[in-house]
């Protein structure tokens, strides 16, 4: 998993400037992978504002993000700069209520429509 410095800097900037960041395949409107689509759906259900970054547009980002989090797959969800998990973990947290608790605990609004 190679990580070039400019891409790592960009990742650090993404996750510090945005409360909730989803690195995914495709975009929130057009997810290109079932796992990415599943997390998009959960975030929309929770009603939290988030930024989606399409790793398919940048092979360096697609590789660097795996090394950055020591996590081999996409999607990857970050909340307030911390790696939260991929599809399985986000789904488990959604079902147990932990995802909403985590967001609220970090002062991030949920239930936001549109």
């Amino acid at each position: 998993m190679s990580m070039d410095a400019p891409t790592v800097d960009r990742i650090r900037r993404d996750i510090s400037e945005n409360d909730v960041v989803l690195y995914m395949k495709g975009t929130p409107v057009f997810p290109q992978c079932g796992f990415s689509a599943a997390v998009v759906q959960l975030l929309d259900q929770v009603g939290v504002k988030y930024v989606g970054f399409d790793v398919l547009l940048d092979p360096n980002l697609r590789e660097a993000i795996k090394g950055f989090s020591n996590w081999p797959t996409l999607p990857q969800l970050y909340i307030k700069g911390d790696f939260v998990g991929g599809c399985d973990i986000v789904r488990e947290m959604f079902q147990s209520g932990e995802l909403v608790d985590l967001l609220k605990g970090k002062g991030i609004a949920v239930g936001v429509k549109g």
Partner: protein
Amino acid sequence: MSMDAIEIERLIKAGIPDAEVRIEDLRGDGDHYAAYVSSASFKGCSRVQQHQMVYAALKGRVGGELHALALQTTVPIEA
């Protein structure tokens, strides 16, 4: 590229010796599996850390040879 369930189970158990492992072949294409792994060594670890332990046991195959592995990790009650 694909893997078979026995190989996945063998690798996980080699990496996490006390693990109880159940593998489900989700699509029969050797590329989409679910793994249920229970181990006392997960105790005190976050879900991310638990999953990273399983990925480490699989020596980089997840996301490569193995397109996707739906993973659920648990700590045995008595642990």
